[in-house]
């Protein structure tokens, strides 16, 4: 399908346009976080637990840090962790999925059993246990999250590869004497892109949720660094008196995850179209 039609479908749905704009806003705001006059981690006991005001538009937390600024910095961490985990998951998932699907036979069986094992482990619990032995930094977090989300990508990719490799254009390439690596690279992978893009957008959403959950439990991003999950955690004890402390990161998580999911659904429609209005 040509670009014009894709654009038309995209803009014809108000919901997606709203989501795209919201996502862009969240991403932009997080990137521009350093423009804020406040240091996100600097403690200022004199101004602790203030409500909304001209000085602190979303108030301050129990250590007097500006909530708005922290939410922006938290967004940086959440989005970074989410997208990094997604990238690792997509690369690994696509590689394993195509090789497994295209090779078939024993390789396929081994790969898929590994996927099954990963899918049957309770991921959050497992990550918490592993955390006891690993340095607690963002890198570890990304790798841990990715190690549980590549399986979903791999499954989708493998299923699609299985159907693609039976298609006549792949048979034609084989009949022309094109090598196996080149067939995967030139024919299989480009035709997987729609599925991979959709899986990627859903996997970002999941990674952000998991990161928040881990940070909330105290295992993710380490204090004093802000993340939406850790902000929620520190807001717990003030939730009755100062609900805004929980509402701000909670809303951010909700909006971001919702937008990624809606975008994922929409991309699916655009990339797999039945050309009707």
């Amino acid at each position, binding site marked *: 399908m040509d670009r014009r039609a894709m654009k038309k479908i995209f803009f014809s749905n108000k919901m997606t346009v709203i989501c795209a704009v919201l996502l862009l806003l969240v991403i932009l705001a997080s990137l521009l976080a350093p423009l804020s006059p406040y240091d996100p981690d600097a403690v200022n006991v004199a101004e602790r637990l203030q409500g909304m005001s001209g000085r602190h538009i979303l108030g301050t937390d129990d250590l007097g840090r500006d909530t708005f600024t922290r939410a922006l910095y938290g967004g940086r961490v959440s989005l970074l962790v989410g997208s990094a985990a997604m990238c690792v998951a997509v690369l690994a998932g696509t590689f394993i999925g195509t090789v497994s699907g295209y090779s078939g036979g024993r390789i396929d069986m081994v790969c898929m059993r590994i996927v099954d094992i990963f899918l049957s482990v309770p991921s959050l619990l497992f990550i918490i246990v592993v955390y006891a032995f690993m340095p607690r930094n963002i890198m570890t977090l990304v790798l841990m999250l990715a190690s549980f989300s590549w399986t979903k990508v791999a499954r989708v990719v493998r299923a699609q590869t299985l159907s693609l490799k039976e298609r006549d254009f792949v048979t034609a390439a084989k009949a022309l004497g094109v090598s196996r690596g080149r067939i995967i690279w030139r024919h299989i992978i480009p035709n997987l892109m729609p599925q991979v893009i959709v899986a990627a957008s859903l996997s970002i959403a999941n990674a952000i949720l998991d990161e928040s959950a881990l940070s909330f439990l105290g295992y993710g991003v380490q204090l004093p660094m802000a993340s939406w999950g850790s902000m929620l955690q520190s807001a717990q004890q003030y939730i009755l008196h100062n609900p805004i402390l929980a509402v701000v990161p909670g809303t951010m998580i909700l909006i971001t995850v919702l937008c990624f999911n809606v975008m994922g659904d929409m991309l699916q429609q655009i990339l797999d179209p039945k*050309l009707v*209005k």
Partner: protein
Amino acid sequence: MSQILQVENLSVQFHTYTGTIQAVRDISFGIRENKVTAIVGESGCGKSVTSKAVMGLIQKPGVISKESKIFFKGEDILGYTEKQWEDYRGQKCSIVFQDALTALNPTMDIGRQITEKIRVHRRVNRQEAWQEGIRMLEQVGIPGAAMRMRQYPHEFSGGMRQRVMIAIALTLHPQLLIADEPTTALDVTIQADILDMMKEIQREQGMTIILITHDLGIVANFAQDIIVMYAGKVVEKGSAEDIFYHPAHPYTEALLRAVPRLDISGGQLETIEGAPPNMADPPAGCPFADRCKKKRPVCGTGFPGEAEIAEGHQVCCWLYMDDGGGSGDGR
């Protein structure tokens, strides 16, 4: 001869993201009662869309234009309410599609799919409906009908499934049966059996059939009347004799010569160069002009009107128009 169906100025458009497809463009024709009429044309010529319009099955994004009129026995069916459509479909007019596998419900046995329809429209009890179902299956030549009523669609072969579809279409004894490429997905031997069966039922019951197809071969011994469509337009109408032995439109003529014949050997096939026009942006003139060997300057100016070159034989071609400068040598 009385006409069971009259289509007047029918236009159907499909609004898609890539533009508006003008699937059927202002066509008119009549269908004679108790005869078999074939609508012949290539993919995208609008033949299936026409049949769907007659069944009231055009759905969004398809739109039937306001000027369009379809009369079934003098009644304007395009003004029907949903309730009236339900009574019309099945009882007055029925359709059989090309793909019998998707048209049948895989989770229901054949018996229920047949009797369901009987019981919705007629006041009969389960027992009577079941017996009627068996009779229908026998009529379309399914051996062991009583036993097969209990089977599911996947237990039937392609040919048998198409027979079941025809049985279902005929259960309420419609006056008009539309067969939309009923044998295209089937092997030739199976196709021949099914066509024979349809012919026999038509003869016995004097039903009117509209046969939609791209295959001139299956039309030859089946249809009395033929309507040739091209790019959303009717280009020629006439009896089977007229179309096969005195084709007037250059498209009809070329189409007949492009098919190799089993009973005649050798020779180069005559081709029709080029491809049909894009229906999102059809040409203002005759849509066949670009591929036509008899093209004249006038062909690009507008769609030619209908010329009657013999009784019951009409053609839309500038060659036969008085102001086209052509001395129509139809006969």
